[in-house]
């Protein structure tokens, strides 16, 4: 029975909707945020109350004002010393591996997302055949030998096309993510090269540890499951 294209499209799309489970998950996602906002607003209120109390105390007694001034000065000195020492320690590291944190952040973000895999296969050779759009070959590396391959999906790292490989899930549902991408120094900066005797570096993001290294011209970034910690 012919129908106007417009009416046909309307009934076609309106017959599709999110499942109850998907709706519940999306509502929960928003609920978490509402909870965070409540915490934030509580924190702000608390901060405002403390501010009022502190200004009242200063008005009441000159002695307490002197005391709080000394405490503040001491606190300032302590914070400055700690900050300087932290900056001294980390600046050389940041200089050495300038993109490591950005790489870890992107890997962890996608690791936690657990998007559907494009290919489910345990064989690296087979995955190499399937990842036909990549301009590099997936590689084995000494540091990824115990990675139990489960499949992979197309992804990117700092906007460079990459393979996101996922391990098979362990008994308790834990899994690891291993990124492989053509190592371009101008994009990824200096990173430790295993063949030069350097060790992989570890960066943390959102509580997840990521090992990063370069081997056979490929940048590897692998999350570390609690089991391997």
């Amino acid at each position: 029975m012919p129908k106007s294209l417009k009416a046909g499209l309307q009934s076609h799309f309106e017959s599709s909707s999110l499942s109850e489970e998907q709706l519940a998950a999306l509502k929960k996602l928003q609920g978490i945020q509402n909870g965070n906002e409540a915490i934030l607003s509580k924190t702000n209120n608390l901060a405002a109350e403390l501010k009022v109390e502190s200004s009242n105390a200063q008005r009441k007694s000159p002695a307490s004002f002197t005391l709080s001034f000394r405490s503040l000065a001491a606190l300032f000195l302590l914070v400055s010393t700690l900050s300087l020492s932290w900056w001294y320690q980390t600046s050389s590291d940041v200089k050495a591996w300038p993109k490591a944190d950005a790489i870890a952040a992107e890997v962890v973000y996608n690791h936690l997302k657990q998007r559907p895999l494009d290919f489910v296969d345990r064989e690296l050779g087979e995955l190499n055949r399937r990842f036909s759009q990549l301009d590099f070959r997936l590689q084995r590396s000494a540091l990824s030998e115990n990675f139990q391959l489960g499949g992979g999906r197309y992804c990117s790292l700092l906007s460079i096309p990459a393979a996101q490989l996922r391990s098979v899930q362990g008994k308790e549902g834990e899994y690891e993510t291993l990124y492989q991408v053509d190592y371009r120094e101008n994009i990824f900066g200096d990173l430790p090269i295993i063949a030069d005797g350097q060790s992989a570096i570890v960066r943390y993001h959102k509580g997840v540890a990521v090992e990063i290294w370069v081997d056979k011209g490929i940048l590897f970034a692998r999350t570390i499951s609690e089991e391997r910690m």
Partner: protein
Amino acid sequence: MIDESQLNRLYRYALSLCAESDVAYDLVHGAIGRFIEPPVPELQDPMPYLMRSVRNAFIDQQRHRQRYSHQAFEEEQVLQDFHLKVLESLVIDEHLLEQLLEMLSAEEGEILYLWAVEGYSTQEVADLLEMPKGSLLSKIHRLRKRLLASEWVRESAQGEGGRYA
């Protein structure tokens, strides 16, 4: 809070882009996740913002997979009278609709969705797709030609001769 009907609207829009329910859900989930990250934008109607977010994520995904290609825009093909309304006179056998949608590119499916389901005007579609109105008119022109060439879609008897309403 984005309510159920808005979530479903967003899902259908995502579906018009990718035609895969899992991917569409993933796009919606990503858009909501980004939307609620502080600072949450204070918008009277969050839907245009969320739809753009779904669209950008979809294009990013496709670029990564090197499947999304912007067709070259040819200025001389712009015909001002190829307004979205020229699609109003088209009819199709309902059972062929699914096949038709499979034949279309993501962008064509999106234009049809915004026109038929969301009821957007040509200017509103052009704004959402972030393209000049002239480019959109050109795409509608090509889309209409493609639809009619498919033989699944035809002009209604009433529509013939009155295309440029």
